[in-house]
Every structure is written in structure tokens, then in C-alpha cells.
């Protein structure tokens, strides 16, 4: 155990943790939205993220920025990232939508019980992952380095790089947009109504199918955006990349209070930071254990997550 290391590098560990946490948070939004409305752990969401990571490599290669390419100018970097966010967001959103159509909608039409949805979700997840595995030959796919971290400033002795800043900032930006949309817009209120009582929501004139499509697209797009950030940060992806991130993101969503967008953000950031501390204290290999222990402890004291549930709340 190495508490000294953590104490000495608290600020630095926090910054890296926040960076990782931002990605968790964005992915967590997709879980939280779907869970909030359908009470379904959308296992396939991790694959929605995975599709995003590959889309990024493909779009970059298409734009002439393949493996071995030299780093472009700042403007070029921004352009590439923007293109990737659009492409990955679209691809991930579309994947999420397809999953909804193929794996969930038929079940909804038959009014299947929740456990069945879960199995279908698992099926969709496995199928997507393995399809990607078969296509990529299960080989990881690398991509050129886009952003070389440069220290921008330091706070409390922590060097903050442009990469970290960019990731945290973009994640926050996207979260704010989504949160405003759900809480302020009429459609957002429709989402919450369907979450709480789908039948009565229909009686209020809410188009349930449209709402569900919407949350899948929004959640998917967020995961797509997260996948770009991940790619820029890690520079490598494989067909199974989603599994762990997915589990972590779902944990983050539960930690913050599932069905609660603010909770997803808080949970994501917190999870990123705490597991980073944990890794510092106990060693890298214990990182996941720390993450789950934090979850259990939090749930023991706050059984509905840190901020409680909000989209859904117990159905009447």
C-alpha cells in the first residue's frame, strides 16, 4: 500500500481521474436514459460505444489520417475531432437505434417481462461484439497520435495537459446540452412521463415509440462522442473495448442515481477519480475492485445512489 504516493500526487491523480471519469460519464448517460425509461440495463450500450471507436479510426483514415500519418496542425486536429464526433455520434446513435428496433421493440410489442429484455440485450451485445471481432480478426486497431499532450498549466502541483482539458471540457459541454434538453424541453418532459408510467403517458399524448427512439439516439450519440475522446486518449481500440468501459459506466450511473442525468455526471467523475486514487494506493491491478467497493459502500448509505433517481422513480 502506498498512501504516500497518493498524497504526494493527489492533484495529478485527480486530474487524470477526472479525464477518465468524463468518458465514463458520457457513456453513463446512455445507460441512465435507457434505464430510466425502460428499466432495462442496455447491455448493448457498451458495443454502441465500441462501434464509435472504430468509426473514428475509419473516418480518420478516410480523411487521410491513417496509421503512420504525421500530426496535423491545430486547426486540422479540431477539424478531425469534429468530423469524428459527428461520424461516431451518428454511427453510435444509429447502432443504438438498430438495437432498439431489432432487439427491444419486438419484445415491447409483446409486453415481455424485464428479464427477457435483459437477455435480448445480452444477445445484442454479444452479437455486436463478436461481429466486430470477426471483422477485425480480433486484432486491436491502432490509430495515429492526434494530440500530443502538452502541459498547459499546473494547479496544486498537477500538470494539466491540453488533452486532459479538452476531454473534460468536451464532456461537460455535451452533458450540459443533454441535461438542458431533457429538463427543459417538452420532449424531455415526455421522456420523463414515459419513464414513470408509459400507459398514462400515452393518454397525455406522448408518442412512446418516438420517445424511446429519441433516448436511444441521444444515448448512442453521447457514447459516440465519448468514443472519440477515448480514441484520442488511448489511441487503440479492439472489438471488446466496450465491455469494461460499459460496466464502469453503468456502475457510474448507479453510483450517481440511475435515471438521473446529473447523477451520471457526478457518478462518472467520482468513479474516475476514486478508482485512480485506489490504483495509486493499492496498485493498478486493484483499480476495478476499488471501483466496485465504492459502489457498494455508497449504495449501503444511499440506496438510490448519490443524487437519487429522478427520471423514473418507482413506478406507481
Amino acid at each position, binding site marked *: 500500500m502506498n498512501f504516500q504516493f497518493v498524497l504526494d500526487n493527489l492533484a495529478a491523480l485527480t486530474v487524470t481521474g477526472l479525464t477518465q471519469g468524463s468518458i465514463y460519464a458520457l457513456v453513463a448517460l446512455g445507460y441512465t436514459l435507457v434505464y430510466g425509461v425502460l428499466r432495462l440495463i442496455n447491455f448493448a450500450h457498451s458495443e454502441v460505444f465500441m462501434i464509435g471507436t472504430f468509426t473514428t479510426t475509419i473516418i480518420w483514415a478516410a480523411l487521410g489520417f491513417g496509421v503512420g500519418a504525421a500530426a496535423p496542425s491545430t486547426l486540422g486536429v479540431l477539424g478531425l475531432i469534429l468530423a469524428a464526433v459527428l461520424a461516431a455520434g451518428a454511427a453510435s446513435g444509429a447502432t443504438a437505434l438498430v438495437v432498439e428496433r431489432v432487439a427491444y421493440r419486438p419484445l415491447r410489442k409483446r409486453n415481455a417481462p424485464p428479464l427477457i429484455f435483459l437477455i435480448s440485450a445480452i444477445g445484442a451485445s454479444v452479437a455486436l461484439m463478436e461481429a466486430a471481432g470477426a471483422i477485425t480478426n480480433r*486484432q*486491436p486497431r*491502432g490509430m495515429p*497520435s492526434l494530440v500530443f499532450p502538452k502541459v498547459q498549466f499546473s494547479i496544486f502541483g498537477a500538470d494539466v495537459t491540453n488533452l486532459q482539458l479538452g476531454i473534460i471540457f468536451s464532456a461537460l459541454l455535451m452533458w450540459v446540452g443533454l441535461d438542458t434538453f431533457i429538463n427543459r424541453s417538452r420532449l424531455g418532459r415526455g421522456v420523463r412521463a414515459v419513464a414513470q408510467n408509459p400507459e398514462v403517458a400515452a393518454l397525455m399524448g406522448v408518442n412512446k415509440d418516438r420517445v424511446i427512439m429519441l433516448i436511444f439516439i441521444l444515448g448512442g450519440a453521447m457514447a459516440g462522442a465519448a468514443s472519440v475522446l477515448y480514441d484520442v486518449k488511448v489511441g487503440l481500440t479492439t472489438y471488446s473495448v466496450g465491455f469494461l468501459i460499459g460496466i464502469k459506466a453503468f456502475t457510474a450511473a448507479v453510483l450517481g442515481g440511475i435515471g438521473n442525468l446529473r447523477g451520471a455526471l457526478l457518478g462518472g467523475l467520482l468513479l474516475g477519480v476514486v478508482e485512480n486514487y485506489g490504483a495509486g494506493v493499492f496498485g493498478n491491478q486493484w483499480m476495478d475492485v476499488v471501483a466496485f467497493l465504492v459502489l457498494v459502500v455508497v449504495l449501503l448509505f444511499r440506496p438510490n445512489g448519490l443524487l437519487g433517481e429522478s427520471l423514473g422513480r418507482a413506478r406507481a
Partner: protein
Amino acid sequence: DSKIAFFGALTGGNAQLGINIRDGAKLAVDEYNKANANCKVTLVEKDSAGDPAQASGLATSVVQDAKILGTVGPAFSGESKVANPILSKEGVVIITPSATNPALSKQGDKTFHRALGNDASQGPGAALYMKNVMKVQKTYVIDDASEYGKGLADQVKTTLAAGVIGSGVVKEQQTDFGTLVQEINKSGADSIFWGGYLREAAPFLKQFREAGGKAKFVAGDGVKDPKFVEGAGATAAEGAILTCPCVPPEKAGGTFAADYKTATGHEASTYSAEAFDAANILLQGIKAGNTTREKLETFVDGYTGEGVTTKFKFQADGDIDPSAVAVWAYTVKGGQIVALERTPTS
């Protein structure tokens, strides 16, 4: 109509390490069958994906096929530890061309043979090379907690002793090494020793270099394959030092390198030549009429002879005679892995 088996990874992230070996063995068998059309030998492939957990089932299936007299492999140390007792209990002759963990010859598996030096030589070899040739002072040692990786890393640690300033563990199939990279950079290490396989080494090194890490990268045979360079990217991999208790294939005797190229369409890589030799020992035994497991075992135990890599003679515990052990250092240069020199092992 006897059979011998290849036992190792043909799928998964480290598949290339197994494929090199399979192709070497296959070349030997094909050549043998061409020369002895009247009594052919079949090569059975047992794909373990490099996963020890699958090894016991595969080993069982090997022993149950009474036609299988011997194996080339198991290729990795982890799977060997599981499979060897099973194979050996039923008398299947084992010649591994690659599993280098020293403890494998101490398990009491009577049919075990190792056609090359082990990590008790490779570890010190790598460490001495770092100390004496590269002149590094502060080494960060990383292992993947596998039988092979941890074993090798421990050997290196012992030899470097005070030169080790930190250590870390990576997980199998880990892809994101952010925290580890940060810790290494914080530690001020001038070199990294990697005890593990290429599947994790490639993305690690890539991320390490991207994050501005300057430390020199040294790793063992588990990383020595072009797939590593490809995965890490030629820029990141440039200058990495890789050790291996294997002979550079181009230095192998006879026409091996050329034959391999014609047969498979690509260059021979790590352990292809050793596998070729291992298979040939078994094939010679079979040709000499040793078509039961017991007889073949006696034959291999008493075998002496020259292969394309070295001169073979096995000790009682199955390890190769110390005189035949050679550890080489390689480096990545211009995207290619090239041999540097033999390194002393003590």
C-alpha cells in the same frame, strides 16, 4: 499412421507467437511425409488460445487419442504447467520449442523436454545486457502476472537488484495504461523491463511514447515478433530491445529460412526453427520404429543430434544441455526486428 500434436495458441491476441511455432512444426512434418510417403505422420493442431484454463481439456483430448505419440509444445509456460502433468502421466512425449519458465522442468513430468534455454538464462541475460551494454541505472519492471511474464520479470529483478526502482502489474487484455504510464513517468525511470506477451506490450508502449515517455523499453521473447512492432507503431517501437533464448532464424542451419519462406509465404519468426527441430526429433524417433509412447520417450531421452538451431541433448529433468543455451539480444530498427548479439547469461 502415427500422429504428433501441436499445442499452443492459434487464436487470440498472442496467436502469432503460436502460429510461428505451428508453421515450423508443419514444415518438418510436410518434409517428412514427402520423404516417407509410405508411412505418413499427421500433425494434429490443438489451439489453446494461450489460455491455461483451456489447457487441461485439450491435454485430455490429446492423451485420449492413442495415436498421438508426442507434442510440439505446449507453447506457453502457463498452459504447459497445466498440460504437462496430464500429458506426462499418460506418457505422451513433450518437446516444447518455446515454453521458457524454469519451473517447468522441476514439476516432475517425466516426458517433458525443452528444446531451448529457459528464463533462468534469459532473465539474467536481459538484465546483464541492460546493465552492461545499455548502461541503464533505474529500471521499472512490469509483468503480466502470467507464469512466463512474472517468472521472467522476477529473474530480471534478482539480477538487477538495486537497479529496480519500481514495478507494476498489467492485466491480460488490458488496453488502457494511463495510470501506469503516469506512475512510470513520475518515477524517473530510464528503462522499462517488460515481462509479458506482445498483446499488452504493443498498446502499452504506444501509449507510453505518446505520453512523452522516454525510458528505454526492454522485453523478452514474448514480445519478439513483427506483430508487436505493428501494434505499437514503428515510431514507438523504434529502439526497443528484445531478448530471446532463440537463434535468429536467418542464422539457422541448412536451408531452413528459405524453405520456410517458400512453404508459408512469410519470413520465419521467433521459435519457428526451434519448432522445426522439435518436430524433427519426434519424427526421427517414429521413423526409427518407435511407434508407442513408451518407445518414443526412451528414444528422445537418449537422443543426441544436430538440428538447424543447435545441438540437442536433454538432461534428466528435460532441460537442454547447458552448452546449447544461447540468449540473443535483438532491436527494432526501421520497423524491423534485427539481431544484435549474443548476451552473456551470467
